């Protein structure tokens, strides 16, 4: 018994592995942070995050590059370097996008493949920009970005045929809007880009607005929280400065510029009293030492010096530093997008999709759960046993819709039919989702569980997306965890 350490009266002289900050000090810091946050809410500069979405080649990265330049985040030297570099490989039209499309492959192909993170300073807001890829193959990356955002900027291409390509079935304008809405984004700014290519035609602008407005309303965006703005990103018209008198836009558009709209975005309320949840969206080598992870705090507050659990797994790590956009922070509360430097951990135990939690308040792990979902505009109906990919924050895992529990009324949520045979488009339903093990060794092998929480406990941790064959077929919220 003694050898197995099973007797209860064994001397309990546990030596702490390393000097962890006493909880009292952390408590104090948390109190302080809360006070600052409240002060900030009433103050001037408030922070929020925004994902930039839209069909491929709508000009998302270019617009962001141009904005960074106009708001002084990118200096002249860099602009010239990008201009030269892109001209050299014969892609001068991508010169603005090069600021965000940093990897070699993105530049060669002239396409954004992964989320780029940047910060914009407007007079009253500090906006974390997540520039999402528009190509349909990279929607997983786009979802990872959109799940970290409070608001969205939709960029549409006004050129004849281009807008239609993005807006029709299978176009990303439609899918992206549904995705960001399903991930809890309620505010959207629609930038109608490349209007210079249609001679600044007001009728074209109105046509696009009139096509988008009903779709936005139908997708669940409140009309008061959707704004439209005509721009030309490449020329930099109506981004931060109102259109010059010489521009044809000046004659018919007197509204706010894009930056004016960004400046008026409403930051959501933050729940910093909730247990800490930090889903990891990227793991990389720290600037100085240790290993850094980035992501968004989805509840609670994170402070340096604390030892945090990494779920799933048995590992824990000490937070060494928190930084955002190069500035080190004393703490980070819910809703902020930060990089966290960790020490005392083997990088192998840190994966994209893992969640950092405080010991004792760890996030539950599940391999099957029930969810209330809304089925999108799909061709092939969902049957019991449909193989899908389940998206939750930056993680995607194979799963299956194991049981169709009931069809619900979309307006009041009452049960219309129990045990339906199939789910067809635009239905609302309650289903059971089970993760699939990816081997063929029979039913005995169990899928690895993922961290998940019911929507009623933590909104951001309880949202899921369901995709099949490169198409998003549904979105929903977790109702109950099963196993």
């Amino acid at each position, binding site marked *: 018994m003694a050898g197995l350490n099973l007797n209860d009266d064994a001397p309990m002289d546990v030596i702490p592995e390393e000097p962890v900050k006493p909880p009292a000090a952390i408590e104090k810091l948390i109190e302080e942070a809360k006070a600052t946050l409240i002060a900030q809410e009433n103050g001037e500069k408030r922070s929020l995050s925004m994902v930039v979405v839209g069909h491929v080649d709508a000009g998302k990265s270019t617009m962001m590059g141009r904005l960074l330049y106009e708001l002084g985040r990118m200096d002249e030297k860099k602009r010239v370097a990008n201009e030269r570099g892109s001209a050299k490989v014969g892609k001068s039209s991508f010169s603005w996008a090069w600021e965000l499309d*940093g990897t070699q492959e993105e530049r060669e192909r002239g396409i954004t493949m992964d*989320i780029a*993170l940047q910060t914009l300073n407007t007079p009253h807001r500090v906006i974390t920009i997540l520039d999402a890829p528009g190509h349909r*193959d990279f929607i997983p990356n786009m979802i990872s970005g959109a799940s970290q955002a409070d608001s969205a900027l939709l960029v549409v291409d006004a050129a004849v045929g281009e807008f239609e390509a993005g807006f029709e079935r299978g176009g990303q304008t439609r899918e992206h809007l549904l995705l960001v809405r399903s991930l809890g984004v309620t505010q959207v700014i629609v930038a109608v880009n490349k209007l210079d290519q249609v001679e600044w035609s007001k009728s074209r602008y109105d046509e696009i607005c009139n096509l988008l407005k009903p779709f936005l309303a139908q997708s669940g965006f409140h009309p008061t929280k959707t704004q439209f703005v005509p721009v030309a990103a490449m020329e930099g018209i109506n981004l931060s400065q109102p259109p010059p008198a010489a521009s044809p836009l000046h004659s018919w558009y007197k509204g706010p510029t894009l930056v004016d709209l960004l400046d008026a975005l409403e930051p959501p309320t933050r729940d910093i009293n909730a247990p800490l949840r930090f889903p990891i969206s990227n793991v990389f080598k720290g600037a100085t030492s240790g290993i850094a992870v980035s992501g968004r705090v989805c509840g609670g507050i994170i402070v340096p010096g604390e030892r945090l659990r990494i779920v799933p797994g048995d590992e824990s790590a000490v937070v060494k530093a928190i930084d955002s956009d190069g500035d080190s922070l004393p703490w980070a509360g819910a809703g902020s997008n930060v990089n966290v430097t960790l020490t005392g951990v083997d990088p192998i135990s840190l994966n994209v999709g893992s969640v950092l939690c405080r010991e004792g308040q760890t996030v539950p792990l599940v391999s099957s759960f029930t969810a209330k979902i809304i089925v999108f505009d799909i061709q092939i109906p969902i049957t019991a046993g*449909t193989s899908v990919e389940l998206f939750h924050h930056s993680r995607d895992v194979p799963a*299956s819709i194991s049981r169709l529990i009931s069809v619900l009324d979309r307006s009041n949520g009452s049960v219309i039919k129990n045990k339906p045979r199939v789910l067809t488009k635009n239905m609302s339903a309650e289903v059971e989702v089970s993760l699939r093990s990816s081997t063929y060794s029979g039913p005995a*092998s169990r899928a690895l569980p993922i961290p998940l929480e019911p929507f009623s406990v933590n909104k951001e941790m309880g949202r899921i997306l369901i995709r099949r064959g490169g198409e998003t077929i549904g979105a929903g919220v977790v109702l109950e965890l099963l196993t």
Partner: protein
Amino acid sequence: MKLINKHIEKDGSGHVTVCPEDDEDMWHLYNLIQEGDRVRAPAIRRIQNVSTTGTVDSRRIRLHLTLAVARVTWSPSAAPGADSGAANGAAGAAPAASATVEVSGRVAEENQHVKLGAFHTLDIEANKNVRIEKDAGGWDSVALARVEESCVPGRGAEVAAIVCGEGTAIFCLLSEHMTVVLQRLEVPVPRKISNQSSAHEKGLARFYQNLYTSFLRHVPYSSPSLRAIVIASPGWVRDAVFDFIMAEASRTSNKALLTARNKFIKVHVNSPHVHSLVEALKSPEIASQMKETKFAREGLMLDKFFKMLASDEMRAWYGPDHVALAADRGAIGTLLISDELFRSSDAATRKKFVGIVEDVKQKGGEVLIFSSMHESGQQLNQLTGIAAILTFPLDVEVVEAEEREAREEEERRKAEEGEAVEAS
């Protein structure tokens, strides 16, 4: 598999002797042997003799045993979730039979060493004869078709597939009835960070290098039976992977790999998970090349079923009860059924499904028995394991109502008959 001997009576009883050769044959045996059958195969058993003086003498002897089967278990070759570094056969050589089928039960034929009724577990060995004896009705058309199919020489066209995404790759080997996941490779690739560091590129380079080593270890690219090497991925990873493999091959002047160049097929899929295999296999590039292989046909047919479900829900039915109703009405054009259903330990259940299969065949319908060792079979299993494409639309609810009425009618008639008997 070699067919050594076959003797089947009219009533479906009799025995078949076969000699399994590779993993796939083991899978066939697993599907053939059922609870209650008698299996005769070579075994090793420890024999204990207590001599008159009380000394115990124990030795192992090789003998043939006949078992009354109580349980059959199957374990596929590559351990599930085998992580990187699992060595499994040398490149170029097809891996030896490593899947195992275990048959346990009581000894049914006594011999000088083993008593009747003693328990034994047989490990079915490759290249050793196995005799399977079934009772009346045991050798039904499905079982016989499987014996026939498994003994056709010269099948064994294989396809290697690599399903990859940025930082992940899954190596699979597909044969007629099986998909074996050889390795799952995961290399952490840091995602792009705004301050243009090269961490992403470095991670990718490491990933390609690891992928190449695993490729050499697992994919028997020079084997003539390997028909194609499929590289499937979303985005442009497959191009990069293919270019890297070819560049490395020419750098190390790997002649065998360079000559296999035209075996490579690059396919676009939507996700880097194993279940994308179905998507890869039904892509036009592959479907045109291997139309006649079982897995391609299965994938196409499953796809057709789902499309039918979308366009005309009344012509796509699934679930054992519903399909049985459709079969009664002679409506089934194509029956999709998983081999899992025939593996039922309950003879009556198996008989029911065999009945449906025979019925459909007799009426000129097409029957596809899916292998649950393939992704398509797995997906069919999730969909209750049985589905049918009907030749004419039938409404499930109407049919169910009809059935209910028929049953009520029956009951009423019985009740009336009962009354009539009482009255007389």
